């Protein structure tokens, strides 16, 4: 169990994983319990007729709430999952990097026969596995919610959404992780993590309603997390490619910086 830093880190983060698992499971199941109110009530039809185009841009097409597939894609995976996963990723990355450096644990770890690159990669792998595990929990929560409602299970959609959310979550976690391990600076890690999280949501949300923001929306990480197109088609190769390029770039920066920098 303790032979590698990967397994050791997973063991150390077991309570973190347990706590966030509860958050993700409760969130997905709870949100699904509101589905009947949206699908059966006449209010959504009224809303669809009267809603201004700009507001529709902000909250999405109300028609999508009327099918279980649309409800899962929009209410769980389009808004809440990326926001939760980005917040969790920021907390996790700070814990794995700058917090350990501030306490001195990173020095203790660096005193054993373990290269800096391997240290970084094993920590990153542990964080990425936690992201995947939480997405599996969210998928399980979605299954439980759909079963509780007696609706047909949209297996393929759930697994596609979970896969996309996992890729997005790993990238979202890797950005502050790379800054944290590459710089050892808490303020820089928090600042960049928050800018990416809050900035992405503000850009993507308001770009739908504000014309001049549309050109800038490509800078939002959430722009490359398109759950709506997954309902009808396959993964967007362009979006996945951008996410992978971002991932590669931040990890390369982290490895180059961490291999040669001082550990406080």
């Amino acid at each position, binding site marked *: 169990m303790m032979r590698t830093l990967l397994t*050791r880190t997973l063991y150390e983060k077991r309570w973190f994983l347990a706590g966030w698992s509860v958050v993700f499971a409760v969130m997905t199941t709870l949100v699904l319990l509101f589905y009947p109110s949206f699908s059966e009530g006449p209010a959504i039809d009224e809303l669809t007729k009267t809603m201004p185009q700009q507001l529709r841009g902000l909250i999405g097409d109300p028609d999508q709430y009327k099918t279980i597939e649309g409800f899962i894609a929009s209410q769980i995976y389009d808004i809440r999952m990326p926001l939760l996963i980005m917040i969790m990723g920021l907390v996790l990355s700070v814990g794995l990097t700058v917090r350990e450096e501030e306490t001195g644990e990173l020095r*203790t770890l660096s005193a054993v026969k373990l290269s800096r690159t391997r240290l970084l990669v094993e920590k990153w792998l542990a964080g990425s596995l936690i992201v995947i595990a939480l997405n599996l929990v969210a998928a399980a929560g979605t299954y439980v919610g759909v079963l509780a409602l007696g609706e047909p299970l949209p297996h393929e959609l759930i697994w596609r959404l979970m896969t996309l959310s996992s890729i997005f979550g790993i990238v979202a976690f890797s950005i502050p992780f790379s800054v944290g391990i590459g710089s050892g600076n808490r303020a820089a890690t928090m600042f960049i993590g928050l800018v990416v999280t809050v900035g992405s949501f503000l850009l993507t949300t308001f770009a739908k309603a504000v014309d001049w923001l549309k050109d800038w929306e490509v800078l939002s990480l959430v722009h490359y997390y398109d759950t709506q197109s997954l309902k009808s088609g396959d993964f967007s190769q362009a979006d996945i490619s951008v996410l992978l390029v971002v991932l590669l770039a931040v990890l390369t920066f982290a490895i180059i910086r961490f291999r040669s920098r001082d550990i406080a």
Partner: protein
Amino acid sequence: MRKGKSTITLANVTKRFGDFEAVSDVTLAVEPGQVVGFVGPNGAGKTTTISMMMGFLKPSKGTVTVLGTNIEPQTSHSVHGSIGYVAGDMVLPGALSGRQFLAFSAARNGRIDERFNSLVDKLQPVLHKPLKQLSRGNKQKIALIAALQHAPTVLILDEPTSGLDPLMQDVFLDTVKDESKRGTTVFMSSHILSEVSSVCDRIVFMRAGKFILDKPVRELTSQLGKHIVIKGHDVGKLAKFLPDSAKLLYKNANEIRLSIPSANIKTFMRWIVTKEFDDILIEDRDLDDVFHELYGGKTK
């Protein structure tokens, strides 16, 4: 890449943090099997020097070599399997038990079971509780076992006994002595001079980022000489007429304190008995006196 026979070498090493030069152009060679005490007040640059030996910090200038490997942050891990490292302020992962932490260290650095068992028998560590629940002394026992269980060639200790009670200090130093008997090269920073003189065979003094004295402990102690306190009415005026071999440390009207090499003590005694005084106290000087002299404090 073997560069020489010395176990640790520092060649013109400088470390700057912004405008502040923590270590200034220091050079040192530690031979295999030597037990070196590394002494200096807080802020002298001891921990920075040791951090460069471990590869935590990269020298701004110069080279650090341990066991023939040029130590840089990206290369230091290759010799960590031959080094045992303990620091007084070492932080162990609180979520792991002692047994789990030692298992991880063993997986990385190796473990000799017989040695591990004998260390556990000797130090009696608490192995089953999470490390965050252990006292400082118990954590240091775990850190020491982690550092020694793979029979390292070099032991690098950074003020390892700071914060430990005297009993635990003794256990710790006994273990280090056992290591030195085994032939392990030891480099130990401390500002507890009694432990340095009891364990080490060479001592390096550091002040304001520079090495200011580097001598074998035996040679240093043989040169320490005597510490003499002379009391009496108006003895302060004798200070002007002290023999050249005497070094005045303190004076007032009725008391003077001085140090004198052991070789000159007979001459001094012949001189002093011709003077008037009420009382004289002669005692051996120790490393604390050297420390105070070098760092500008009062002698005892």
